[in-house]
């Protein structure tokens, strides 16, 4: 492994997926050196390719040089929010404090599927007010702190439910990242959050999670979401064909 690969790992920020496998690390090392001053675009290209490995988008993204302006986009779709690996939204201490308070209070609630709680209302309100910055703070909080798994699980469910376009990609990433949490409750929250997003682009991440998931009930839940997303994808395709015929 080259030093550059280590550099990639060392510069890991909570907003970029850490290399999950040796292959991912190697891919990062291939990407990193070619544009020393545009390293962001290189790493981001790697992220796009991995996240959308089985989609057309992946084939459109070159393995090497990729300035941001050339990232292919579709109308009404944001693929990435990260602009610089070293310049992501530094967690706002006020937001972190607010989240800590919300999570502390959340520990005393009993959550029910489909029911708003004081916790969920506070979280959704924070996301609506602060957008991606709130998700960045939440990411730091969920990944770095010793968070209550049930409350984290509830937070992830609402990340999939909240209607906030600007923060979509960050929410998507955080949900995918949470599939690798050591806590089963958090993984279940992520699975449900992703099911609520109902975005077929998460299929590769769910397939990956299915290969490593050890809890049978969660494997079943992942399969159920994969089935749901397959149906959604078929509906998209049918609708696209129908549109093109008209």
């Amino acid at each position, binding site marked *: 492994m080259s030093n550059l690969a280590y550099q990639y790992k060392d510069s890991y920020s909570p907003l970029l997926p850490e290399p999950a496998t040796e292959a991912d690390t190697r891919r990062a090392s291939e990407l990193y050196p070619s544009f020393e001053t545009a390293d962001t675009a290189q790493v981001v290209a790697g992220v796009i390719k991995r996240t959308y490995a089985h989609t057309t988008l992946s084939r459109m993204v070159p393995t090497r040089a990729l300035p941001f302006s050339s990232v292919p986009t579709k109308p009404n779709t944001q693929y990435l929010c990260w602009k610089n690996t070293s310049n992501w939204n530094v967690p706002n201490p006020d937001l972190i404090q607010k989240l800590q308070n919300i999570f502390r209070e959340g520990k005393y609630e009993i959550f029910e599927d489909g029911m708003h709680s004081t916790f969920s209302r506070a979280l959704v309100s924070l996301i609506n007010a602060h957008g991606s910055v709130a998700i960045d703070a939440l990411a730091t909080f969920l990944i770095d702190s010793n968070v209550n798994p049930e409350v984290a699980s509830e937070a992830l469910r609402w990340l999939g439910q909240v209607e906030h376009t600007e923060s979509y990609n960050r929410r998507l990433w955080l949900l995918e990242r949470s599939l690798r949490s050591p806590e089963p409750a958090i993984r279940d929250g992520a699975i449900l959050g992703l099911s*609520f997003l109902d975005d077929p682009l998460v299929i590769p991440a769910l397939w990956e999670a299915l290969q490593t998931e050890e809890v049978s009930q*969660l494997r079943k839940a992942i399969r159920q979401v994969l089935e749901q997303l397959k149906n959604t994808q078929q509906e998209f395709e049918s609708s696209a064909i129908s549109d093109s015929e008209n």
Partner: protein
Amino acid sequence: VPLAIRKIRGQKWSPRYSWLPEGDLEADAIQDLKTENNTISLFVIEDNRSNFDRVLAALAANCTNIANFDYALIDLDALKDSGYKFTEDPGETADKDVNKWHLNMIELSLKKLTQLAFTLVNRGEIDRKDKPYVKRCLEASVRENKLDSQLVKLEDKDRALLGLPPLPPKSK
């Protein structure tokens, strides 16, 4: 044989922690069996499950948002044979027919409640219906005018998805 259904949060009912002895349940599961006056609310599902979707829609209409529906389903006679007592009290959902299928399991002691949890796991069926399924059930009940829209507790965003008018401000 009719069945009894109870809405739960499914993840707590599966052995997801390595520290949990085989055959045991995590303590948090009992949160899904919240009692009121030593009573638990259940709905009856026909043995051919013909009313399952309708009961599901009625229970989902009691929520604020359309989401997944995790449930435990169990043979009602098995519960009666185990000594559990029931009363046929009307339910409180937006579907007046579903309300007639409501039962209260009464005179529950802590021991009986714990036994109920294990009976649900060992002899019942614990499963999840995803959000699209729940939405289809709600759509069917709305289409067939089974739900009193004034009693549907869903928030306006989800009411709109079902073609229901927004809740009047004082009901929100």
